[in-house]
């Protein structure tokens, strides 16, 4: 027997009561996990337009599923606790308890996988944001194209809210035409020079949109001719730090989402601990109550354990059971060969 403990009637009653309370606590934790999943999903959906794919959504999806399953599972555990001290009502839970243990163990594994995934998917999130932001900056000027007309507003709000500029930094705006042709005077010499100065015929300038401006700068925002020191009085491009936001939006968003997931990490880990303790306590309660019901005196002392045999023997038993189950499903080749011969003969 693995980790056996003696239980008298009073201890069994106390275990049942304590486990009932713990199970209700686990139900609250399940609701908390569900709400956490909903919150993360909403935060990811808000910035959906600057993300290229939705792979990171697997984290909040699993959290929501686990939350709902956990509420149901732990509510069932409370019903088991209520029935455990009543010898007439407890036997009907016998079959279900095996399934319950499997489901609870799976929920713990899923929660652990969520914690692992939230770190492992950081690279994919970064990739997704890189492509999404690049597209957003490219389509910034297309406020008259259906499907892209809100990119300008989205990027402006994003840059102002997260205090960032461009994909990696503000120079990303120099490589893209972000002023639409509708607002360019193509008869002007300056515009024609700029368009002819690059291969693709785009109107590129060393300027940024107004949403890159940093309000904490001591001087009014300089948006145009940023690389030209002579264009502005008392201006040095290399040493000017506060004029625009220095951070790139990709880094800002990654920091934000990683911060969110890191701060939920301890909460998820404590929920895993609570679920594990409910699982172990319920196993002890089950074995102790079953042991007591098998005695002549149901109120006498019984033993509670985690596994009837040791770990190795239990695993071999499980393997043997699984193989016999497979053998039943497989058709026996010898009997199959004999019956057609008998039919021929």
């Amino acid at each position, binding site marked *: 027997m693995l980790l056996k403990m003696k239980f008298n009637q009073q201890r069994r009653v106390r275990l049942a009561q304590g486990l009932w309370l713990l199970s209700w606590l686990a139900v609250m934790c399940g609701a908390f996990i569900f709400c956490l999943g909903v919150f993360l999903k909403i935060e990811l959906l808000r910035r959906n337009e600057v993300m290229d794919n939705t792979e990171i959504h697997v984290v909040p999806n699993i959290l929501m599923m686990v939350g709902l399953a956990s509420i149901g599972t732990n509510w069932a555990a409370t019903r088991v606790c209520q029935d455990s001290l009543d010898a007439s009502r407890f036997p009907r839970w016998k079959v279900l308890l095996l399934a319950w243990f499997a489901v609870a163990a799976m929920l713990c594994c899923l929660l652990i996988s969520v914690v692992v995934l939230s770190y492992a998917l950081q690279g994919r999130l970064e990739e997704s944001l890189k492509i999404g932001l690049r597209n957003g900056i490219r389509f910034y000027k297309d406020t008259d194209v259906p499907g892209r007309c809100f990119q300008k*507003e989205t990027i402006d709000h994003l840059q102002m809210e997260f205090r960032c500029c461009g994909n990696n930094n503000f120079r990303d705006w120099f490589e893209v035409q972000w002023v639409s042709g509708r607002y360019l005077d193509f008869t002007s010499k300056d515009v024609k020079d700029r368009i002819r100065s690059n291969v693709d015929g785009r109107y590129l300038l060393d300027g940024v*949109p107004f*949403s890159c*401006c940093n*309000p904490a700068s*001591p001087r*009014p925002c300089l948006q145009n001719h940023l690389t030209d020191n002579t264009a502005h009085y008392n201006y040095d491009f290399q040493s000017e730090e506060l004029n625009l936001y220095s951070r790139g939006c990709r880094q800002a968003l990654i920091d934000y989402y990683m911060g969110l997931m890191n701060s939920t990490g301890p909460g998820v880990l404590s929920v895993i601990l609570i679920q594990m303790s409910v699982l172990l306590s319920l196993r002890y309660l089950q074995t102790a109550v079953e042991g007591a019901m098998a005695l002549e005196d149901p109120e006498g002392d019984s033993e509670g354990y985690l596994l009837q045999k040791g770990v190795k023997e239990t695993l071999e038993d499980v393997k043997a059971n699984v193989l016999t189950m497979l053998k039943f499903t497989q058709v026996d080749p010898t009997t199959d060969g004999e019956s057609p011969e008998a039919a021929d003969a």
Partner: protein
Amino acid sequence: MAVGQVTFTKADREKLAELLWLLNWISVLTGAMLFALGVFLKIEIQKWQEVMSDQEILHVPHMLMTTGVAACGINFLGGKICLDCADTNKFLRWKLVMIPYVVCTFFFTFCILVGALMCYSVSTQLEESLFLGLRNAMRFYKDTDTPGRCFLKTSLDLLQIHFHCCGNSGHQDWFKVQWVSNRYLDLSSSAVLDRLRSNVGGHFLMDSVPFSCCSTFSPRPCIQQQVSNSSAHFHYDKRSQLMNLWGRGCRQALLDHYTAIMTSIGVTVLLIWLFELLVLTGIRYLQTAMENVLRLGDEHLESHGWILEKSFAETARLNLNIMKNLGKCYQTEERQQDHNINTHGAGSVTRQH
């Protein structure tokens, strides 16, 4: 005839005491809510207090916070009193305190009403304060190197971005103010000198606005310079001009924001006031019923409870007479000294003409 007289049996008195105990504890919670509302309003006002010229609006959250704390204290005491009031022996302990307690509760309930009315009446004063505050903030926008004013630029930019507003009444307010500091102006350039000489005050004025006035909903990149000159930019028509910058003035935006907050707070405080009035009425009935029982001597008898022992007119007349008699004592003394009435026997001179 007493005002609002009701007869109470012993069971009625006990039930009333229990109900009032519960209501007093609920009032402690509403008092805490009142305090929390005061704290919330104070934080909201302090967020943007740099653009307000005077801090008189802070009287409103301070009033709410003090009445909230007072509510918690008075109703906590009331809970204890009401629990004891069911039993006549225990009531004797509180007998002397009851009248002052009821009077205090009445005044405190009146203060809650004043707090609620203040929420609604502060709007004109707030507008005046915002007008002056925003005008000063715009004047000192460029002074990021002057101690005491160096963060006004950041505050004003963040205000305009957050509330989607520009200037005091509109974006034209920026045309009347020099918002570019001389440190960033090339004073040797003839263009700059022309501008400086073009107005009486010698300010560098232009029809441009800061970047924080730019509207994020405009379909074209923001135009900040030569905003009112439609020929200075390509394809810059009336519609583009309207959508380019935020149309609202910041004074109106802030006024709307604070009026909305204070209206909802005012409604909540009025509801709390009605609840407190209910508790006060219950306590008054319980006090009068218990006193009448003590007067009757037997606690199992029925007793009357009322709000006022006599009618409003009689009570008012009684109180006025008391106050008049207080004054009369001093008056008769004076008359004796003035007219030298012979009441003390030989030795005093009587005037006989």
